[in-house]
């Protein structure tokens, strides 16, 4: 008999286990520390882990993600106790301020993350292969929503898993932003002040932790979000029955879950105050939360690397017959460009964080000048990824804009070849610009001018995209359903980000703008224009493909018209206070600077954005079951996935297709992109 699980029982379990975990943590804390602290890190950590795990147990039972989380919790403790035991034998200090000592936490967290992967079941087939046991190429998925909480090899399921996880993390990161944005609404410290104490941190420290985590959680959510779009769309667009490596695809998704847990653990284990960049020497001195942060990012990086590997292999090896390079959809080009960066450069952020972890654990003085190290070396290694990373974030989004625009203006995409090449151009130039983040860092001065020019060079391929979009819209029959609104919004917002970029790239100006809110306004414009708006556009656009229903059009428009003006007010306001002297990453400012009112408006705008995203989330989950039925070619698109009925079956096209024309020839009479041809002996 099948047990009936519901969200209600999940919430009940969450509350009970959260409370039990809190009490266990409190007991341990009192025993070891001889001191009862209601808001201490250890009870909070136990409460968080238990509550998460129990929620999924209530919803789903002991399998899939629940088993993974149980394994992670148990093995984190086992790993921690192993190191603690070794320390006892070596006569070292046994327990630290956060129950375990730092090496015990790090080892435990690493073991726990690996154990999660075994628990969730994503390693099962590989273990069997290693033991010489053959497995079927694909496994049957459970029907219904339950397949999303366990391991599935279907790229469409994994794409949706990525997307929903990204939306969850965006909500978490956004909530953090709202908390510290509220603190910034007026000068002086209102509630995040020294008198407050939570998770072993006082108010200003908590501000720093929330600000730092907002950055990294949003970055991880963006990586998962683009992986969601790419995973769902690319195999459909190239006519493959799945990704090239379905098991690694599942692995890449599931490895991001323990990574997200570790990132959240850093909040309750003392936090960290370095910002998302984690520069030493500050990151060497921060509490153990810093290590959880490093480890979480390191593990999330593997998700990005392996996902990118899969995309490149899929596009190179699995395209439908007749789909030559110059007939691939632009989103596929953009995905390949983004994957080239993610595959290679991601290793460098992992390495830079790993070196700081080792400096903390083993006293290896990579970045410690007292031991002959060099702190600026960290910045070079770190930005070698972390600048190209922004192109990883925006290239798929820009691809979505180019992909959707012709559909809604009923005209061919202007300058297909140039747009295709511009993605690669941005990716390759992106490798040569990293030191523009370091103009004020004290690096060698002769590096400044070359990096200034290479940075300005990025504007050329990006400009190509803008000209293409404008020329595509020019004279078209524009329709404005919700996805198109978000595409247009993306173009406007990304333009603002693009125009505010070159001033920062220019050394003389950057020396004044560096570390001000002008930079914050600039990158929020680029990321919203390059990722958030296209991400929403893609969700509204492909939602009918995934579910067979469409999202509510009215509430979609409310979402757009509430979010866009609020967002522009937010970023223009950020740039204004930045020019007036507001520094980044600080909890307070001087009322004499005269921008209290602007900050208040910014906070109101931030809440308006949050409200619009809430509307979106309700619309999203409500439409899955109650949306208007839409199984045909909703948007009248030429793309192959819309030529078959929705939702798509497992393994995609029942009849393979052959590419016979150009992808974006909208409005040209008699033009065809694809023909469905019955398979002949498995030939593609």
């Amino acid at each position, binding site marked *: 008999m099948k047990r009936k699980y519901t969200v209600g029982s999940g919430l009940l379990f969450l509350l009970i286990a959260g409370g039990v975990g809190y009490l266990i943590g409190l007991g341990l804390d009192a025993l070891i520390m001889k001191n009862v602290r209601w808001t201490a890190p250890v009870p909070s950590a136990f409460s968080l882990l238990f509550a998460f795990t129990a929620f999924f147990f209530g919803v789903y039972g002991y399998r899939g993600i629940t088993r993974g989380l149980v394994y992670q919790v148990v093995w984190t403790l086992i790993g921690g106790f192993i190191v603690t035991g070794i320390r006892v034998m070596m006569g070292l200090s046994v327990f630290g301020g956060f129950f375990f000592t730092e090496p015990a936490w790090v080892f435990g967290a690493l073991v726990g993350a690996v154990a999660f992967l075994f628990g969730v079941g994503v390693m099962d087939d590989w273990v069997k292969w290693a033991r010489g046991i053959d497995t079927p190429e694909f496994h049957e998925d459970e029907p219904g929503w339950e397949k999303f909480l366990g391991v599935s090899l279907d790229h469409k399921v994994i794409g949706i898993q990525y997307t929903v996880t990204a939306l969850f993390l965006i909500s978490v990161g956004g909530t953090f932003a709202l908390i510290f944005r509220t603190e910034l609404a007026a000068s002086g410290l209102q509630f995040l002040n020294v008198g407050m104490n939570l998770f072993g941190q006082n108010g200003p420290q908590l501000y720093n932790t929330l600000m730092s985590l907002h950055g990294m959680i949003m970055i991880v959510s963006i990586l998962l979000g683009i992986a969601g779009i790419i995973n769902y769309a690319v195999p459909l667009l190239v006519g493959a029955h799945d990704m090239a*490596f379905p098991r690694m695809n599942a692995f890449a998704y599931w490895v991001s879950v323990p990574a997200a847990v570790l990132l959240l653990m850093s909040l309750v284990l003392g936090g960290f105050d370095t910002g998302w960049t984690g520069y030493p020497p500050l990151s060497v001195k921060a509490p153990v939360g810093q290590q959880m942060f490093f480890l979480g990012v390191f593990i999330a990086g593997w998700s990005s*690397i392996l996902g990118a590997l*899969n995309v490149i*292999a899929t596009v*190179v090896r699995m395209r439908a017959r007749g789909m030559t390079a110059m007939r691939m959809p632009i989103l596929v080009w953009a995905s390949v460009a983004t994957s080239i960066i993610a595959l290679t450069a991601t*290793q*460098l952020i992992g390495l830079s964080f790993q070196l700081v972890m*080792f400096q903390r654990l*083993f006293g290896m003085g990579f970045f410690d000048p007292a031991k002959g190290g060099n702190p600026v*070396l960290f910045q070079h290694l770190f930005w070698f990824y972390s600048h190209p990373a922004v192109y990883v974030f925006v290239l798929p989004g820009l691809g979505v804009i180019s992909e959707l625009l012709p559909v809604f203006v009923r005209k061919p995409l202007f300058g297909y070849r140039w747009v295709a090449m511009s993605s690669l151009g941005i990716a390759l130039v992106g490798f040569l610009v990293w030191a523009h983040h370091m103009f004020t860092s004290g690096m060698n001065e002769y590096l400044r001018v070359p990096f200034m020019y290479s940075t300005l060079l990025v504007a050329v391929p990006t400009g190509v995209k803008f000209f293409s979009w404008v020329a595509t819209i020019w004279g078209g029959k524009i329709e404005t359903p919700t996805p198109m609104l978000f595409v247009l919004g993306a173009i406007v917002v990304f333009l603002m980000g693009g125009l505010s970029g070159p001033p920062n790239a220019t050394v003389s100006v950057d020396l004044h703008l560096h570390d001000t809110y002008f930079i914050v306004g600039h990158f929020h414009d680029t990321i919203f224009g390059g990722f958030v708006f296209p991400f929403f556009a893609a969700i509204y656009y492909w939602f009918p493909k995934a579910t067979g229903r469409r999202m509510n059009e009215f509430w979609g428009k409310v979402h757009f018209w509430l979010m866009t003006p609020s967002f522009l007010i937010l970023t223009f306001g950020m740039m204004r206070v930045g020019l007036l002297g507001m520094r980044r990453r600080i909890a307070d400012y001087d009322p004499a600077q005269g921008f209290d009112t602007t900050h208040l408006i910014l906070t109101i705008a931030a809440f308006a954005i949050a409200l619009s995203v809430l509307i979106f989330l309700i619309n999203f989950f409500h439409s899955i079951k109650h949306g208007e039925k839409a199984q045909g070619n909703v948007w009248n698109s030429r793309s192959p996935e819309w030529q078959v009925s929705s939702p798509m079956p497992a393994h995609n096209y029942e009849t393979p297709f052959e590419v016979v024309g150009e992808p974006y020839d909208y409005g040209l009479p008699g033009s065809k992109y694809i023909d469905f041809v019955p398979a002949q002996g498995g030939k593609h």
Partner: protein
Amino acid sequence: MTHKQDKASMLNQGVFIFVYLAILTVLEFLVAASFNSTAVLIAVAFVKGALVVYYYMHVYKLNADHEGDHDSYEYKSGTNRLGLWLFLISDAFVFGGLLVMRMNLLGLTRPNLNQLLGLGVTSVLLISSFFMNRGETMIANGDRKGFLNNTLITFLLGLGFLIGVVFVEWRLAAHEGLTPSSGPAGAAFYMMTGMHAFHVLTGLVFLAIVWVNGRRGLYDDQHYPVEAAAVYWHFVDVVWIVFYPALYLVGTAIV
């Protein structure tokens, strides 16, 4: 595959390449000991790496046909091969980053290490690559017994390398005062050899898996897993071909 060559000529080729590699290794050791030219050391390492990448890792196989039956074993192996090489490119960026770290912190100085031990472990790893290539060639030609013997030798040599670095070299270095926390030379030395040793360890795991499964005859017809383990093993060798001069030969030793 269009590059099908007969067993004897492939085995002969492996011997020739090994002789080149051995000569070049002795050459770089002597260059470092006499006139120590960084440019020559870089050139030698580059040539050695290129030889292994082409003749032992068979990088040209990536150039296989992209047409054909997508469900055939050959086509799927081609896709797997591409995936493996993409992974190696990604992994190479880790080692590249470590090399940048070493150059930034140490410049043209190097840790003071036991030269004979360094040459010894390097030789052991190169010889293991030679036997790995033999093993792969043999299973590709249906010689299971030859494959098993050569893979076992590779495994034992790899284990010897690991013990030589982690249990002998690290102890000797620590005894001489070179510890992870002693300064930039110690930090770079333990980090680079440690990361490499971790890859050797995973390579040994893969070798053990293909050896055990190969004994049961799993690869008599379809031997891509052996090729994958071999390519990974050679990659670990290529990394050492670069790290050996970077740690033991280039520049002057910090005493």
